[in-house]
């Protein structure tokens, strides 16, 4: 597989929370190359890797398939599309941001704003009540094409930066999806310590809802959430961030299994995979939080890909980090060489 192409296709696919269809279909198609049995459960995409054998613990690899976005609430009298947020949107960057509305067809638009010539001491960030999308279409035509409940996403194409760094929206968490797929690629033909199931779960950005029902359905012994975490960048706190290009961030937290964290660290060290510590003091804000306490509980871990500008259309990752994270997952899952 070509990791760059997979990440590009996944990151540009449609899938705001609750509207994951196209991204889910693409991920399912990609997953079918590795799993004999793949199915959709609601908007969750689930695949069984290899043949599950009696007696082995059940390991679930989770990455969320949804992305932050917006949802149409109505059309204003002046023919602008009104929306509210799906997930944590930074409203400071909305003015003139280019979007796509998933109506009867895909309709491009931009968020309205006043030009600096007319803005009067604008000391306020626009609220969603004020925000409005300009589609260039007359109201009557718009009403034929767009309805309340339609999804909206930032319209951005993946671009290559220097080295192996890339920028796009929705890298949170499509790079996690690509990472799991690459881990399966590495595991082809290997003896496994676990019965492995993959889930690309929906609605993480609105409160890990897809993982809640996914955890119930799959009932894992161990679950690893493969998500993104903060990479150091201008304006960020180095104590709270990993760094781009320095490898996977392994989570350590009271809510995670210390045994899983230690094992991940041991695997990274043994295979000489560079890694970073991500120490948290409570829950993790990832799907791991759901797996820990669903049914009778499960051991959980997090492997996070460092990412800059989270939840913006200008997210940045280093593809080497995705590769290293996939290697770490593969090392964790592979039967140890005798």
């Amino acid at each position: 597989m070509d990791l760059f192409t997979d990440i590009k296709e996944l990151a540009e696919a449609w899938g705001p929370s609750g509207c994951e269809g196209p991204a889910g279909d693409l991920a399912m198609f990609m997953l079918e190359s590795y799993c004999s049995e793949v199915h959709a459960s609601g908007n969750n995409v689930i695949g069984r890797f290899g043949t599950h054998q009696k007696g082995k613990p059940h390991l679930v690899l989770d990455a969320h398939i949804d992305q932050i976005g917006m949802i149409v609430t109505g059309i204003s009298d002046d023919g602008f599309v009104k929306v509210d947020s799906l997930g944590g949107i930074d409203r400071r960057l909305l003015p003139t941001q280019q979007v796509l509305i998933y109506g009867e067809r895909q309709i491009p638009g931009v968020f309205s704003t006043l030009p600096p010539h007319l803005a009067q001491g604008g000391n306020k960030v626009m609220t969603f009540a004020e925000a409005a999308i300009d589609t260039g279409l007359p109201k009557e035509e718009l009403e034929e094409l767009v309805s309340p409940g339609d999804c909206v996403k930032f319209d951005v194409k993946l671009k290559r930066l220097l080295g192996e760094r890339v920028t796009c929206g929705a890298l949170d968490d499509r790079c996690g999806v690509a990472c799991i797929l690459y881990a399966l690629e590495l595991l082809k033909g290997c003896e496994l310590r676990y019965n492995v199931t993959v889930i690309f779960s929906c609605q993480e950005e609105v409160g890990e809802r897809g993982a809640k029902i996914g955890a119930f359905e799959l009932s894992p012994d161990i679950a690893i959430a493969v998500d993104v975490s903060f990479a150091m960048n201008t304006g960020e706190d180095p104590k709270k961030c990993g760094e781009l290009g320095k490898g996977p961030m392994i989570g350590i937290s009271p809510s995670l299994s210390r045994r899983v964290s230690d094992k991940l660290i041991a695997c990274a060290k043994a295979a000489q995979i560079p890694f970073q510590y991500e120490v948290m003091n409570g829950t993790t804000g990832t799907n791991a939080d759901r797996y820990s306490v669903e049914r009778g509980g499960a051991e959980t871990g997090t492997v996070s890909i460092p990412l800059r500008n989270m939840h913006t259309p200008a997210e940045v990752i280093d593809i080497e980090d995705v590769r290293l994270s996939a290697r770490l997952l593969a090392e964790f899952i592979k039967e140890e060489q005798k």
Partner: protein
Amino acid sequence: MTELLKRLCLINGVSGDEDRVREAVIGRIRDHCDELSTDPLGSLIAFKSGRSAGKKLMVCAHMDEVGFIITHINSDGTLSFDEVGGIDPSVVIGRQVKVGKAGLEGVVGSPAVHNLSKEEREAPPKFSGMTIDIGASSKEEAEKYVSPGDCAYFSSEFLEMGSRIKSKAIDDRAGCAMMIRLMQEDLPYDTWFVFNVQEEIGLRGSAASAFTVAPDFALVLEATTAADIDGVSGQKKVCSLGGGPVVGFMDRRTIYDRDLYRLAFDTAKEMGIPCQTKTAVAGGNDAGAIHISGRGVRTLAVSVPCRYLHSPACVIDREDLENTYALVRELAGRIPGL
């Protein structure tokens, strides 16, 4: 004219950096004028003879667009920058940009919304502290590609949205496009055409070129501030898309020639095309430098109404552009005969 506008808008040319725009203009007007020269600042001055001499009319537009200039390369490989021209920082964060003549891909990042305090989330962003990320992992790597003084540009596709057009740099490539088209026509009167530099940093190019040409009349072709957006009513709209060419009586820099102002509305009425004024005294354009050049120049500005000026997503109406052109063409045939 849409195709011509597209070609011009997609060229990158911030104030002081108009070379590529000028080359493109020269290629299109070389065979349609009698004299052509570039002045010491970089403005392009062309003379085209008409069927008769008349009084001396100068038609002009500016080639530069708002953008950015790299001021410093930081130790982490990010680029510090200043804005060139008046730009609202909220149309810059979380955006893709192009850097330098080679058009290197970059993004303007932002600390993740998760890591901002409640106050920070509600405070409009500022340029101080923003950086451009080209994917470099060190100062040394960035220095191979970028030098302080290089310009950076909005990265935005040219998009037709219904009857509307969305692009960067419509201010003032729309004016340039109308001039190029006018120069391809058979003109009733001798006319001077000036493509100015450095409008966006304070009407610099036009100050020099107006002196050089020393016209009796000036017709400034522009794109101006339409605020006909959701939640704005009445006079605060300033001008509206679909309302035809905008002819103002006054802005922050100029009180326009009263006779020319009336002539414009009378002419539009005769032609049966809509024409509107600006219902606010706001903004300014090259007329500000031109009308007080030498012993004074009788000046009028005719503009295409444009939403979201000075952003990556300026929006105009195609019909407004055609109607503005039709009015300009007619005025150029009448003013020298006054």
